[in-house]
């Protein structure tokens, strides 16, 4: 689905923000990109979306070279949810907002199709179509932005820190929605996220970046358990991984509170007996 081959990107020919990236993401994967600020995460997802083009190397999405693909063609394939929904929202009603993206990609003539799809999304997210986006809360605006991103049914969904500024409930709602999309529609998800708990709960694979380079690529659980790697990338693993890791032995394999507490309870019983 997404294939990066020795991708390098430098800003105005000066600083290399990402260097020699190579990875391959299959259809239907849920991938998180981890690393501290300035590691090159956002640049990488922008390269996948074609908002930036590699200075050298090649980025292929669905077999198409992003550097040679037209904007509207690419927008059919890849949806991008930004950290700040207010940069995306530009229409005065929620209905118009969703239709706007559809028109840009499908063309203005497809009125019926656009109408139908807009209604579908309004129902799906239980929005009122005539609501003004800017009178909604940040979490709701993020959902409006998500709805209009998903409207064109992109095969790849990119999320750049989708949970910033959201409370726990809003964050869960957005992430659960994305999970179901990934599971039922097979949408490929690539997510930049600072909240390691969210990464552990939702992503299955992680790319770790530092200083513009790819440090590691593997299943989320394995990545989080690699203490040396976490240290090198200045990351702190999720709490349960820290706890199970420190307990060591048989417990080291547990990665959620439920499993770990079960294991400990059983061990405690054995000890008493």
């Amino acid at each position: 689905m997404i294939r990066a081959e020795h991708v390098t990107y430098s800003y105005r020919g000066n600083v290399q923000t990402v260097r020699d990236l190579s990875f391959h993401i299959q259809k239907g994967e849920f991938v998180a990109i981890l690393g501290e600020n300035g590691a090159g995460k956002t640049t990488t997802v922008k390269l996948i979306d074609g908002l930036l083009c590699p200075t050298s190397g090649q980025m292929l999405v669905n077999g198409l070279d992003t550097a040679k693909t037209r904007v509207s063609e690419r927008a059919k394939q890849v949806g991008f949810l930004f950290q700040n929904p207010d940069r995306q929202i530009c229409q005065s009603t929620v209905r118009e907002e969703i239709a706007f993206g559809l028109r840009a990609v499908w063309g203005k003539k497809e009125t019926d199709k656009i109408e139908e799809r807009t209604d579908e999304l309004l129902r799906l997210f239980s929005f009122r179509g005539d609501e003004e986006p800017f009178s909604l809360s940040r979490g709701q605006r993020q959902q409006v932005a998500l709805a209009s991103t998903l409207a064109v049914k992109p095969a790849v969904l990119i999320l750049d820190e989708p949970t910033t500024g959201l409370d726990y409930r809003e964050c869960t709602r957005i992430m659960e929605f994305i999970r179901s999309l990934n599971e039922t529609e097979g949408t490929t998800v690539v997510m930049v996220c600072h909240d390691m708990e969210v990464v552990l709960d939702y992503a299955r694979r992680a790319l770790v970046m530092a200083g513009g380079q790819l440090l590691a690529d593997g299943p989320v659980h394995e990545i989080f358990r690699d203490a040396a790697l976490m240290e090198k990338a200045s990351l702190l693993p999720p709490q349960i991984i820290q706890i199970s890791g420190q307990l060591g032995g048989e417990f080291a394999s547990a990665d959620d509170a439920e499993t770990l507490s079960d294991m400990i309870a059983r061990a405690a019983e054995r000890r008493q007996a």
Partner: protein
Amino acid sequence: MIELQALTFRYAGADRDALHDITLTIPDGAFLGIIGPAGAGKSTLAHCLSGVIPHAVRGDFYGAVRVDGLDTADSRLTDLSCIVGTVFQDVDSQIISSVVEDELLYGLENFGVPREEIEERLTFALEQTGIAPLRHRAIASLSGGQRQKVAIASLIALRPKILVLDEPTGELDPSSSRQIFSLLRRLNRETGMTVIVVEQKIMLLCEFAERLIVLSDGRIERDGTVREVLGDIAGLEAIGVNCPRSARFSSLLSEKTGRPVPVCVNADEAVEAARRLIG
């Protein structure tokens, strides 16, 4: 010390109270965290503490807020801001100058700090926040975490007794967020400054704050030490507040073993609790 007495505030044109009947005392030297779901009134409360409400925001204000004995409604905002320093949610919009040094000078100049004292205060604020090397840098060239530190330094230079921060780590990555909180802790411990911070990241609050207030729908739902508040995980989730996994783990552990397990606010405590059970 801050005292809130039956404080109710409703924004002009709103159809419900943003804060409703809040009574609260915050002693000197406290490190207080405020958490709650979106729209709970966290920022409104922060603005009431610093006097921005009722001075710069329109709405109906009932009850009283007293900061060091001064009634905020009767005092001038500038008099209050010598006691309470405020860091607003959007750091970029509160920065006034283009160079770090000027940003720190701004408040000092306005409050008429004597010239011979200015340099000393500048150095103090820069050193406390660890940004002395950035003194002559253009603010536009700094990272988000550094800008946040500049904003904090510009307030510390004024030597307020109380610092109120509204989601200071909102846009920062985990390691910069921790740096900001470590800085707040140092200020709190070394200078005795009262720190009040509105924050969405529960894990940071658990690690750094001493007291936690949970707001929901304009009301105080919980108020106590971090450990006390985390004792009721189900209740917090019903309000819409997340818990650290360590606390969830300790509660599950006590449920499954049928033995009392203390609330664990961080990973180390959880490891210790588990070891005690399995020997």
